[in-house]
């Protein structure tokens, strides 16, 4: 007997799942950054002396000049400014909030690079680049950057 392609009667769809347990490690620098959020409610950055720039989140090497960064930690302010934002209007299992919520790039005072985080306490229409915000820390730890729960307008 032959296969029939036109009427696709032999074709089926089998549902399944791809899921495996993972156990990720933040590494020495990542741990220090997250512990500072969790235990001291502080935001730390690393400074590259040669490029005279403070980076958040921390990384072991400066991408531009390859100098090692893991000794020069800098304590940064909990306040900063929105440099870019979007209003996420769709829902999905990996998203940290129900839609609509504000995902912004926030440069805290003392840092040269903004990092992505959530802004709450303001309507989506009123958010503007350049707004001043301050950090609100989480009660429960999640061992990630979400130990800083969100930013809200100052």
């Amino acid at each position, binding site marked *: 007997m032959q296969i029939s392609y036109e009427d696709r009667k032999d074709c089926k769809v089998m549902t399944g799942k791809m899921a495996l347990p993972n156990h990720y490690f933040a590494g020495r620098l990542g741990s220090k950054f997250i512990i500072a959020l969790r235990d001291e409610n502080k935001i730390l950055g690393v400074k590259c002396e040669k490029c005279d720039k403070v*980076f958040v*989140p921390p990384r072991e090497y400066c991408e531009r000049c390859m100098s090692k960064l893991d000794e020069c930690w800098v304590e940064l302010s909990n306040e900063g400014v929105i440099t870019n934002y*979007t209003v996420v*209007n769709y829902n999905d*299992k990996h998203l940290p909030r129900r839609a609509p919520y504000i995902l912004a*790039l926030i440069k805290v005072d003392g840092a040269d690079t903004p990092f992505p985080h959530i802004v709450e306490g303001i309507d989506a229409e009123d958010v503007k680049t350049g707004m001043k915000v301050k950090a609100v820390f989480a009660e429960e730890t*999640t061992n990630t*950057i979400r130990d800083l729960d969100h930013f809200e307008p100052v």
Partner: protein
Amino acid sequence: MKRVAVCAVAQHKCDSNIWHKRFQGMLLDVLEDIQKQTGMHFSEEGGVRSIVSASDDVFDARTISDNGITDVIGAHYREEEKMAQESLNALGYAMSIILSGHEDVVYVAGHCKESQGESRNVCTNLSYDPFYGRAMGLDYTNVAALQARAYMEKSGLTEEQMAKVVVRARQWAEKNPYANATEQVELGDVMYSPMLCDPIRTMHAYPVSDGAVVMLLASEERAHEFTDNPVWLTGFGSCMDSYFLGDRDLASNFALKQAAERAYKMAGVKDARKEIDLVEVMDCYAYQQPMWLEGLGFCGDGEGAKFIDEEGPAKYNVNLSGGMLAGNPIMTSGLYRMAEAVLQLKGDAGERQAADVNRAIAQSTTGGAGQFHTVVVLEK
């Protein structure tokens, strides 16, 4: 530098839900298509002995997913290497296999089914590091939205201009038998479609798509065995930008400019505007078409918005295939861009055929907000 010929291309029609075929089935259809076109065979003497596939384990939900397609790309007892990256890079690597003298004929095969997984955003969220990126739910959609805002603030790109890009894409897609989204839309439909991720609207984003594309490359000496109308691969370049969004100026096109510069240098192109007759860019979202055209040198920095109003894309034959906005899968868009460029240079583009096309470029990107770009230059 010796030259590499693209002898033939075969595209599978893109669709948002090819539920009736395994990805092996899609690849078999296009294999038969290209065999018909070129008489290509896999015999040990003179046949295809080297194959470069392009796909991704996370989208295929299968470890070593090129093991699943070994049979349908003819790799049984042959050499096969998988480009687990955007498929245009498979072209660059295949080019090197021929230029190095390792093999004379290389078969390139890319596939991807975005409809198989529950959501492509969940897959692209897995591209980020678990502690900073994934925890914030970053994925290629919301990160592109951040880039859209940065670019709109820099170039003054308006809702109407973005709508024009989508409307034009659909007009050309209608003439492309392989495109996915072909129903026509008005400016208003696009401008008032619901907001997906401010400032990206649902109509600005490319539809979920499944598809597969294959190509046959050969050395200059042996191209005539497979075609009498070869297209020459003369330029290739790619470039990586920083990973952390904060380390980048999202509207700077840093990686695309470098990739284009290297590809143009290899192909001997001095000024894109004068020497390139046709452009295929990977515009996953409407704002990306003007932005990538800036990066490729078709207009100055920040002038993409004006370029749209001046009908720039029409002038330079941009995305006559309907582009990515007409719906191609994320991992295989590069090959769909390439395929259109090759057909145009061969004069086989049917309704979409542009006049005297002698040199064309195809561009693709991967990573969040264009972290990595690839550019290929093709000539008649």
